[in-house]
């Protein structure tokens, strides 16, 4: 069955028609052109498709678009702009946390969701927040360091 829904994507109201069996991942990529959201496994096992829905990090391949009528959705397109990148983006670059780049949008969205709720995470809390994001390239060290650095830059005073 088809339904017309409204998603507040990165601060803008967007209207679209979706099928009941269409994932949020496919609706974001194919109908709203949020191409930062990657399909890695389509089985909720890799985190490449991670987006933030109503403040909560989720695998968009595991959410139906039709459930998201009226939902606030954030993708990587919502942060930073050319010449003025978000601290997370800057830290990923300066820490060599990007190799092929395919896991990166999902990693950054998981990291952003973490820093939004916990501005001073411990390394253990960072690892838990990123536990659902797989990377085949880096070995994760650079990514964890990048999130640490971004937390220091955005969190204000750090113990």
């Amino acid at each position, binding site marked *: *069955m088809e*339904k017309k829904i409204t998603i507040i994507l990165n601060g803008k109201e967007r209207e679209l028609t979706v*099928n*009941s*069996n269409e*994932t949020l991942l496919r609706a974001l990529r194919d109908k709203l052109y949020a191409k930062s959201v990657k399909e890695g496994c*389509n*089985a*909720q*096992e890799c*985190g490449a498709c*991670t987006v933030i829905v109503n403040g*909560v*990090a*989720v*695998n968009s391949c*595991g*959410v*139906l678009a*039709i*459930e998201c009528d009226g939902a606030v959705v954030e993708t990587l397109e919502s942060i930073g702009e050319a010449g003025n990148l978000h601290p997370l983006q800057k830290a990923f670059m300066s820490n060599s946390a990007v190799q092929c780049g395919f896991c990166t949008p999902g990693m950054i969205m*998981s990291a952003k969701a973490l820093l939004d709720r916990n501005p001073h995470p411990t390394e253990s809390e960072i690892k*838990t*927040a*990123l*536990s*659902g*994001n*797989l990377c085949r390239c880096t070995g994760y060290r650079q990514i964890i360091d990048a999130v640490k650095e971004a937390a220091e830059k955005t969190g204000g005073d750090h113990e």
Partner: protein
Amino acid sequence: MKKFDYFAPQNLEAAIKLLQSDENRIPYAGGTDVLENIKAGHLNVNGIVDLKKISELQGIYFDEENGLSLQALATMNEVCEWDLIEEWYTALFQACGSVGAYQVRNRATVVGNICNASPAADSSSPLMLFDAEVEIYGPEGFRTILVEDFFKGPKKTDLKKGEIVTAIQVPLPPEGMKSKYYRLSRRKALDLSAVGISVGCFTEENRKFFRIAVSAVHFVPLRIRQAEDYLSSCEKIGEEEIKKAAKMVKDTVNPITDLRASAEYRKEMVEVYVIKALREFNELEVE
């Protein structure tokens, strides 16, 4: 993905009517199992009934008289981020925190975990440890059943046509009871468990009482009362008694071989984990 109808009822009655009127419809909350089963073609449904708009199914409640009430929509992260649950129901707190990964736990529900009824369900052994009850609502009204009796077989529960689980009620544990969840899996995240055990210990009138429940090693999660009763009958609990109790657990379970572990390995490891757990708890000062 195969096509299906989508319904989002605003209340319980409407949800039950929708489930009753077409037996090929299924309740849907987090969808971490249901959606993947539909994608893989393991689940063939005409419609899904999204429960997330039903406000009485939300929330987790605790008080020191009635214990813990996990409503149907309570997610794994809601459980494993509440320090009260860590204090009173440690094994449950740890088990819920071991499921999948962070994003999955934002959607996965404890009720969904038991309704999916994988014999490896992480929340199953802790819930059984605490004698939790399942609250069910259907065309005939409300009923309750012990979590232990809710599991009928792999992926099979006691739910009848048109029924949904509305909550899990976990009574207050005996005073001072300590518990822990042990899990054997190949990865720290994004993996099912090959062996899961929950062990609890409390003291009553200067005697130590143990509770033991296991998952992933039998066709349903199990509470091993034979080992519990044996331990509570011992005057003193030392290495010999611990090994005897662990052997009872090993001899009771009948695991299968699958891609995560062989049956032989599971049998060996459930014994290893029970010994480890009992040793840890035996040394603990339990008030």
